[in-house]
C-alpha cells in the first residue's frame, strides 16, 4: 500500500469507527472533510448515511480517488466517539505520522472504560432508578434490578450470533415482561407495571432517536429519516415482545 492509499484508509477507518459507535452522520462527514484537508487532499466530497460512507477526493498528484465503506452494525460506545474526536483534532493540528496514528487507533479500538462487571452494575442502576423515577416503591426497585442483570446477560449472549436489533428487542422485552409478571404473581405487593417500565427504558432506542433529530436539523434528511424509522421499528419490536407474552400469561395467571 502506498502513502496515499494508507492515508485514505486511515480517513475511512476513522469515519467507519465513528459511525459504527453511534456518532451522528453530520459529525462523520465533518470529521472526514477536516481529515482530508489535513492530509493535503483537495476537493473532498463525502456522503455518509447510517449504513455507508462514500468518499471521493483529489490526491496531490491530481489523481481522483473514490472509496466506499459499508457499516453493518451500530453499537453505542460514545467513549470511542469522544476519543476519535480527540485524535482527529490532533491530526488536524499537525500530527500526520501514519505510524503514531495507527498506534492511537489500536489503543482506541481496545479501550473500554468499564469492565463487564461494571456494565452489569450500570444496567442495574439505570433500571432500578427508573423504576423509582416512575413512582415505584423500594420493593419494585429491588425486583427490577435482577431482571436488568438478566437482560444484560441475555443481550451479551445474543450478540454472539445475532446482528438484528429488532430480534434482540423482541426477545429481551418478552423476557422482562415474563419475569415481571411472574414476580407479581409470587409477590402480590409488587407493581409489575412499574417494574416493566423501568426495565423497558433499557431497550428504548434513545440514541437512534437523538441522532435522528440531530441529523434532520443539520440537513442530513435521509439519515435522519433512516434513524427515526429505525427507532420506531425498535419501539414496535418492544411492543411485539410484550404483547406476545402478555397474551399468553394474561390467560394463565
Amino acid at each position, binding site marked *: 500500500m502506498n502513502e496515499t492509499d494508507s492515508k485514505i484508509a486511515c480517513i475511512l477507518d476513522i469515519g467507519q469507527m465513528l459511525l459504527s459507535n*453511534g*456518532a*451522528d452522520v453530520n*459529525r462523520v462527514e*465533518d470529521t472526514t*472533510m477536516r481529515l482530508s*484537508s489535513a492530509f493535503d487532499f483537495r476537493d473532498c466530497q463525502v456522503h455518509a448515511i447510517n449504513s455507508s460512507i462514500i468518499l471521493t477526493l483529489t490526491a496531490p498528484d491530481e489523481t481522483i480517488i473514490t472509496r466506499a465503506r459499508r457499516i453493518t452494525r451500530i453499537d*453505542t*460506545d*460514545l*467513549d*470511542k*466517539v*469522544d476519543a476519535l*474526536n*480527540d485524535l482527529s483534532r490532533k491530526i488536524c493540528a499537525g500530527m500526520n505520522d501514519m505510524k503514531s496514528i495507527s498506534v492511537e487507533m489500536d489503543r482506541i479500538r481496545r479501550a*473500554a*472504560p*468499564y469492565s463487564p462487571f*461494571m*456494565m452489569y*452494575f*450500570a*444496567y*442495574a*442502576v*439505570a*433500571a432500578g*432508578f*427508573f423504576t*423509582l*423515577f*416512575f*413512582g415505584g416503591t423500594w420493593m419494585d426497585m429491588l425486583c427490577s434490578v435482577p431482571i436488568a442483570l438478566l437482560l444484560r446477560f441475555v443481550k451479551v449472549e445474543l450478540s454472539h450470533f445475532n446482528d438484528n436489533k429488532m430480534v434482540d428487542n423482541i426477545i429481551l422485552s418478552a423476557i422482562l415482561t415474563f419475569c415481571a409478571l411472574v414476580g407479581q404473581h409470587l409477590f402480590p405487593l409488587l407493581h409489575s*407495571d412499574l417494574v*416493566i*417500565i423501568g426495565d*423497558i*427504558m*433499557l431497550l*428504548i432506542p*434513545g*440514541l437512534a*432517536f*437523538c*441522532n435522528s*433529530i*440531530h441529523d*434532520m*436539523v*443539520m*440537513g442530513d434528511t435521509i439519515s435522519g429519516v433512516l434513524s427515526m424509522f429505525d427507532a420506531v421499528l425498535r*419501539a414496535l419490536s*418492544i*411492543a411485539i415482545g*410484550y*404483547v406476545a407474552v*402478555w*397474551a399468553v400469561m*394474561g390467560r394463565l395467571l
Partner: protein
Amino acid sequence: MRPELIQILSAGVAGIGFAMIFHIRPRHLPAAFLGSALSWVLYLLTKQVWNSNAIGMMFAALGVTVYSEVCARILRMPVSVIYTPSVIPLIPGGHLYYCMRGFVTDSHAEFVKYGSMLLEDTLSIVLGTMVVLTFVSAITQKRNRKNIR
C-alpha cells in the same frame, strides 16, 4: 422525602447508569448526572407554570440542548456524549408502556390516551431540540466552512 425530589435524584442517578451503558468515561459522569437531573427539574418547573405536559417537555428538551451544547464546548467533546444521557428521563417510556397495556387489555380509551401522549411527548422533545440546534447550526456551519476552505 418529597416525591419530586425523589424523581429528580433518581433521574440523575439513572442518567449516570445510562451514561455508563453508552460507555461514557468516568470523568464525564457528573455532567450526565447534572444534565438528566436538570432536564427533570426544568420539566417540573415549566409544567407547573404553564400547566401543560407538552410545553414542559419542550422547555426541558430546549434547556438540555443548550446545556449540552455549552458543556460540549467547555469540555471539548462531541455534543451527543452529554445530550444523550441528559435527555433520557424525558423519553416517554411510561407512556409507551401504558399505550401497549391499553392495546393488550382491549381498553380503547387507554390506548388512544397514552398513544397520543406518546406522540405529544416525542414531538415536544423534537421541537425543543430543533429550536436550539437550528441556531447552533446556523452559527457553526458558517464558521466551519471558513476553516475548511
